[in-house]
């Protein structure tokens, strides 16, 4: 066990070379190797003379190496909305290269993380109030929205997490089913463990069985409703194998999923409510139905006349009131229950999805002339696409049939969209239904899937 270190002070600290930082690709990564990889990466960044980089990796350990190397090189870090190759292409350039393990961008626009350091680097404490990150997330117009953050905001939030749960997690190892390319996974699966001297697994576990096979006796699962609502019929874990803590964020976890997770794993998931803009806001464990969210320490809450929840802490944007996208009922003690979404964003499997953005990408296919994307109402949440085909598209439809054609369009979308943002159900129509003013008729679009 080691002391909690702010990220800005971590590299300059006297951390032992033998401290286990992470498990990455089946190998133990200790602090000595970590320091040397950060140094090697700094050398590469500095030789390029750039002041910003796009950071995207498969492995969370590599991400941490790139993260600290960029900040120690006074580079601004750009965090793209996802790491699909087509998305990266929109952010990467000669002046803003991709910092990664190795991915399909031109050599001149790429810096590989890690390698052998040529010399010693004298690490000084970074100024967290002058270290910048730009997080991109789905925007309502179909163009991703930039949310700037300072390292000091990240540190302030990690300090709150540590004071809330640090003691429970002593000597545990963190494993996650969520990606570190989103803020929740980044903080909970990588940066917080790194700061707290708790080892973490670099890989993202897509399958429960894989994760349980690796999980040691004391572990912390960083997961989401997507996985926690789909736990296979495991035999409940015996007491010695149960994790210390299960975290969930991204969207509401149903009461029944929370209870089921407790039956199998022996602990009730701790849900985190928050967003890229606000950071972590509140938490709850659903012992009863309903259980309100309790604000994290230092987080103020209020409800506007519109019913929308606003929050403020030392790490919300500009340390000022930030409006969330949620409607809520607030109790006198500051706790609250979420009652619905207030905007046209859609949340699918915990991922924020902009319908306009999916439509825009779909229309970029040569097979498509017009497209509408809707959220299906009913028990199975998911997107549906209604598409007007081009002549090429129509020929393909005749040739391969509707199923294979929609698979081909999904393949096309995969370049820029994550799986959750891809339409599951498809209709190919002669013309999108519109009303007399030329507006698309949402009800008629829904009707196509009844």
């Amino acid at each position, binding site marked *: 066990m080691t002391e909690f270190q702010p990220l800005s002070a971590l590299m300059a600290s006297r951390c032992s070379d033998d401290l286990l930082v992470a498990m990455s690709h089946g190998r133990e990564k200790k602090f000595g190797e970590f320091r040397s990889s950060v140094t090697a990466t700094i050398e590469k960044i500095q030789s390029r003379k750039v002041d910003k980089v796009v950071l995207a990796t498969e492995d969370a350990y590599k991400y941490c190496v790139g993260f600290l190397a960029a900040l120690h090189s006074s580079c601004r870090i750009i965090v793209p909305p996802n790491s699909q190759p087509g998305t990266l292409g929109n952010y990467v350039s000669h002046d803003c290269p991709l910092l990664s393990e190795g991915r399909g961008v031109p050599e001149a626009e790429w810096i590989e993380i890690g390698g052998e350091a040529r010399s010693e680097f004298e690490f000084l404490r970074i100024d967290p109030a002058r270290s910048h990150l730009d997080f991109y997330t789905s925007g309502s117009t179909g163009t991703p929205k930039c949310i700037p953050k300072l390292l000091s905001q990240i540190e302030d939030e990690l300090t709150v997490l540590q004071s809330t749960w640090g003691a429970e997690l002593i000597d545990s190892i963190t494993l996650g089913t969520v990606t570190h390319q989103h803020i929740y996974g980044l903080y909970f699966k990588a940066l917080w463990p790194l700061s707290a001297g708790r080892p973490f697994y670099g890989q993202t576990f*897509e*399958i*429960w*069985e*894989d994760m*349980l*096979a690796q999980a040691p006796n004391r572990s912390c699962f960083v997961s989401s409703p*997507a*996985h926690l609502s*789909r*736990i*296979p*019929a*495991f*035999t409940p874990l015996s007491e010695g194998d149960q994790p210390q803590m299960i975290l969930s964020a991204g969207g509401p976890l149903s009461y029944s999923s929370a209870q089921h997770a407790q039956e199998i794993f022996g602990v009730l998931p701790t849900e985190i409510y928050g967003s890229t803009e606000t950071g972590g806001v509140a938490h709850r464990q659903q012992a009863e139905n309903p259980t309100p969210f309790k604000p994290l320490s230092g987080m103020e809450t209020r409800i506007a006349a519109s019913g929308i929840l606003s929050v403020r802490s030392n790490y919300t944007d500009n340390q000022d009131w930030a409006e969330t996208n949620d409607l809520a009922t607030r109790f006198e003690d500051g706790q609250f229950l979420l009652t619905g979404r207030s905007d046209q964003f859609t949340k699918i*499997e915990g991922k924020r999805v902009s319908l306009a953005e999916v439509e825009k990408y779909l229309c970029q296919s040569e097979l498509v002339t017009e497209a509408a994307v809707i959220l299906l109402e009913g028990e*199975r949440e998911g997107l549906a696409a209604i598409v007007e085909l081009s002549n090429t598209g129509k020929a393909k439809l005749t040739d391969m*049939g*509707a*199923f294979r054609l*929609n*698979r081909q369009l*999904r*393949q096309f979308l995969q370049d820029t969209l994550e*799986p*959750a943002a*891809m339409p*599951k*159900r*498809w209709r190919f129509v002669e013309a999108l239904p519109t009303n007399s003013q030329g507006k698309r008729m949402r009800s008629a679009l829904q009707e196509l899937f009844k």
Partner: protein
Amino acid sequence: MNDLELELKKLVIDTLNLEDITPDEIDSEEMLFVEGLGLDSIDALELGVEIQKTYGIKMNAQSDDIKQHFASVRSLANFISSERKEMSA
């Protein structure tokens, strides 16, 4: 095509609510994920839950072969048959 493979094709279509496709349009050898049927990781979780429910098979958490078992309908059918043999043995 053997009965189990046909049954699994139906199970894939029903569980995932796939439209515009019938069991005989799925090739037993074709990839279920990414290419071929183009299923994603959420589909994989749902399929896993359903297969364990339907066939009462407990996936061995220590096994690294799960991704291979889920590669195609044929590999799934082989996996399920061998597990069944073990259970009745």
